[in-house]
């Protein structure tokens, strides 16, 4: 639909039926003249406003989006706006990472009696959007294809040698199987020397195939929900264990149905980094690991590399190398480093260094490369919707099957939004991406905001309530925003 050329910008408002919609009526009844740009969508409650609606509007070309609800403590449904406040504040702080000016989105509170306030809100917000001008359009922004290349310094020494406690771990698993555990998820050697693959160990022989080392990259927590109702075990690295904790805290698996086997982790590799050092397309013949050195023979060449060169980014800043929860822990725990000042991985560091428009261009370039295989989703232990992912559904139909940058990015936004407050930072989404798109940056943007506002990190406490499923009547860390 056409916006009156030159006169109006496209501003979408989501107003709760009881307070703000009434406030807009009161303003109308008082003939309080306002700019004509705003289009109001009536919703029952500001708590009904899924932040994805706002993202949808902004992705599809809205120049500004306004959400308005009842004043805190005066919600018609008693607490809807409290949830809305958390979700919308988080959204506002998320927007810059995809190159959208957060000033284009605002949320506020207007009661049904506040006609004058509503007029001020509309007038001020419209003036703000006009000052910002039309939103940059995805088709106009130049795509860029440069990638973060930074190699972060590791917080602790990473290693790849034989783990001395592996026999102890195997014995613990064998004992557990003997006591009636149906099977235990672990890793075994894969199709070549640098690939590991998951194994569901049910016999002592299978347990003997268990390996532990830099190639055990998969987060096995991803398989746990599908074993629901069966008593099984899982072998975890520190990062994997956080996923288990989060699944437990959300009630998606039961504590009495899962046994957790842990061992100190010394880091895992980013396979793309190894492959990049090898002759293109060469088959891997052998691999030897000692200390922090990996020696790979491929295509007749023997190439030596260090963990410092090929380790996964997350391992470099890892502060939880040991399982945060376990029933059996083999060997001595790895020393845990202090949390770094700056926990950003290269993806987010790179995005932070770009201007808003450059960030848009970045995602445009990356999403052009995206093949929509959804491997990111498959690898994510917290993606529990499985067959019911909204990206595959027509009711609701959040994304179409259209192969456009916006649709593909919107899937990533859904994923990131669904993980807000739940993502444990295992970066499996990014690892699994065949195109090496740094999609974890979107989740980390949410994660750091949640850490900042709610001092909350997911996957650390089984009894914690994720911040988006609760609220405080007075939010001391959320600045009251006032448009009037």
């Amino acid at each position, binding site marked *: 639909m056409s916006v009156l050329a030159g006169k109006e910008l496209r501003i979408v408002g989501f107003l709760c039926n009881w307070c703000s919609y009434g406030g807009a009526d009161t303003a109308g009844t008082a003939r309080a003249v306002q700019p004509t740009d705003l289009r109001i969508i009536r919703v029952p409650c500001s708590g009904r406003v899924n932040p994805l609606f706002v993202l*949808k509007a902004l992705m599809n070309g809205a120049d500004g989006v306004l959400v308005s609800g009842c004043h805190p403590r005066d919600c018609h449904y008693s607490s809807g706006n409290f949830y809305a406040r958390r979700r919308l504040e988080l959204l506002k702080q998320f927007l810059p990472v995809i190159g959208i000016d957060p000033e284009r989105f605002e949320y506020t509170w207007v009661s049904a009696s506040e006609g004058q306030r509503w007029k001020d809100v509309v007038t001020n917000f419209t003036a703000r959007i006009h000052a910002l001008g039309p939103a940059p359009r995805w088709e106009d922004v130049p795509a860029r294809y440069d990638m973060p290349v930074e190699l972060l310094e590791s917080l602790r020494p990473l290693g790849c040698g034989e783990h001395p406690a592996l026999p102890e771990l195997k014995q613990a698993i064998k004992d557990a199987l003997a006591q009636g555990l149906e099977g235990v998820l672990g890793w075994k050697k894969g199709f070549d020397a640098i690939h590991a693959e998951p194994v569901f160990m049910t016999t002592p022989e299978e347990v003997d195939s268990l390996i532990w080392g830099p190639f055990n990259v998969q987060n096995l927590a991803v398989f746990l929900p599908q074993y629901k109702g069966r008593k099984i075990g899982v072998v975890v690295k520190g990062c994997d264990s956080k996923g288990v904790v989060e699944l437990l805290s959300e009630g998606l698996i039961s504590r009495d149905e899962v046994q957790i086997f842990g061992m100190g982790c010394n880091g895992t590799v980013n396979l793309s980094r190894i492959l990049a050092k090898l002759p293109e397309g060469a088959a891997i013949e052998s691999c030897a690991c000692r200390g922090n050195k990996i020696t790979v023979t491929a295509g007749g060449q023997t190439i030596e590399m260090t963990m410092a060169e090929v380790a996964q980014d997350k391992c470099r800043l890892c502060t939880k190398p040991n399982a945060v929860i376990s029933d059996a822990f083999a060997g001595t725990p790895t020393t845990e480093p202090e949390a770094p000042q700056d926990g950003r991985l290269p993806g987010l560091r790179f995005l932070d260094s770009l201007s808003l428009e450059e960030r848009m261009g970045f995602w445009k370039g990356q999403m052009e490369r995206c093949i929509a295989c959804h491997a990111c989703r498959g690898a994510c232990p917290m993606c529990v919707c499985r067959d019911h992912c909204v990206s595959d559904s027509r009711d609701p139909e959040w994304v179409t099957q259209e192969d456009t940058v916006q649709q593909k990015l919107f899937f990533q936004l859904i994923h990131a939004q669904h993980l807000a407050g739940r993502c444990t930072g295992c970066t499996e989404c990014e690892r699994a991406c065949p195109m090496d798109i740094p999609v974890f940056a979107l989740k980390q943007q949410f994660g750091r905001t949640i850490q900042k506002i709610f001092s909350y990190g997911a996957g650390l406490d089984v009894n914690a309530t994720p911040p988006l499923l609760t609220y405080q009547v007075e939010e001391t860390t959320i600045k009251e925003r006032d448009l009037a």
Partner: protein
Amino acid sequence: MKIGVFVCHCGSNIEATVDTAAVARIALTYPDVVFAEDTMYTCSEPGQENIVQAIKKHGLDGVVVASCSPRMHEPTFRRTVERAGLNRYMFEMANIREHVSWIGRDREANTNKAAELVRLAVEKLRRDAPLYAKQFDVTKRVLVIGGGVAGIQAALDAADAGIGVVMVERESTIGGKMAKLDKTFPTIDCSSCVLAPKMVDVAQNPNITLYAHSEVESISGFVGNFTVKIRRRATYVDWDKCTGCGTCTEKCPTKNVPDAFNENISTCRAINIPFPQAIPKKATINPDYCRKIKEGKCGVCAKVCPTGAIVYDMADEIVEEKVGAVIAATGYDLMDWTVLKEYGGGTYPDVITSLQYERMMSASGPTAGHIHRPSDGMEPRNIVFIQCVGSRDCSIGRPYCSGFCCMYTAKQAIMTKDHLPDAEAYVFYMDIRAPGKMYDEFTRRAQEEYGVQYVRGRVSAIQPTVRPDGKVGYIVRGADTLLGKQVEVDADMVVLAVGVEGSHGAGHLAEILRISYDHFGFFMESHVKLRPVETNTAGVYLAGVCQGAKDIPASVAQGSAAAAKVMALFSKPKLENDPQISLVDIKRCVGCGKCIKVCPYQAIEEVDVRGAKKAHVIETVCQGCGLCTATCPQGAIQVAHFTDNQILAEVNALCQC
């Protein structure tokens, strides 16, 4: 789907700034729209009939009306489409009056905007499904909050209709502000003679349960089924035993307690019954002053009480009541006029409020009806009344007229002349607002019969001075704008007609009741003209000044009106829910329980469906807020008529690039 669109002119309300014919033409280009036209008054009988005929003639499956706010006429048009055989929920509205024609002057922009809003409504309607209401039981009892004249009237009317009433009053007696008044305008009736019999009726009516000295702590539930927690504040007297004999008060040695009932112009004892006609007539100890409670010494009242009713270690008690409806009648308080330093800010003893003056004139008041000024007991000769103190004053954030001050000021001036025939009464006013029956005549009588001197102008300042005889005087400096002169009166006493605001704590109560309130603590009615005693929360009604300044007859009328609304609500054997509620798609639900966690009404329960955990909505409990829908990652729980797909369709209609 076949959709019909009706674009209303609303006379010239919409047509003046929106080209409704053009909107109708554009609407015809929208998907599924097979019929569109502009009509003069869609809500009028011919307008509605027109819709009915169009549905029949064109076989419409759904209707969009573009007119006023759905908060106004959505129920009207739902009935209209139902008359034509459609499901009442196959209807949507586009608000092109309050949100378009009344707020924008640019006809082109308005027309475009109106057409877009119609588009939103069409897109929403295309995804609507017929809905059917469910019935649920209703608790036929009503909670009345506040025992002033409005609350009393509401309680008595409801009780007379056989409805159980729970009345909660913050003070230790009912009666409210009216009980403090000496006389009432325009008849100069004795206030307590009119009110006291009604108060007695409240006490004696078997259908009424009265909790005095109590406050509403919390309310949960919804229309028909509220659960109320009431805090019975400790009185330190067992009211079942107290006979109201007054011996305790007589013997209490603590005599310096500010007497709140007498607006603090006098003192009372630490154990007290506010006034002779109090209901309930029971004593209450003020723990801030009681020596026994504060210091552990004394205990005189316990010694003299003939029934042994004194309980020094009494604690607050929480009681729970179940009701189906609530009437808020919490009245008002005077605004804090001490911000007005030019009137002394409360430091001049002989500058008092009209309510204090009322107590002074009352025969049951502290001076037994004799007018003596507080500072030295002198009988005043010159009394100045200042109107609009804290009313119509934007500089202190009080833009509104308090409504009844003009009338009671006239009454008090007349009463002054009655009490002190030789005294002079001056009234400084800006405008006299006397629109009620016999009201203007009354203010005229004050001037014509009683010789009250009215002066048109505000008072700039009150300046105390010491007269040659050593007595304090108050130079009241104002203007006579009719004369165009500055004028002064050397007054003995000044009475301020202080403006009103919502009762202290009204905002907090509004939050408990989930109703809107304004900046001044007044509760917001559902529609300013047509639904004056209803609120936007079903089952919660308003009576009296809590909704806005009004005098006694209007408060009484509203009390009866609120009671009538409750009777109508309770007249049905069962209530019907609004079926625009959430529904779980069992196939999509993974049983994660996030919806259960956030639901404000505990309306979602966990059920076992063939061994799998699933969410299930209790239909009569769900209020349709949609918080669950926004929470569920899979989109497995959808609130009807505000589904993800409907809102997405609206967003997509607006933003397509």
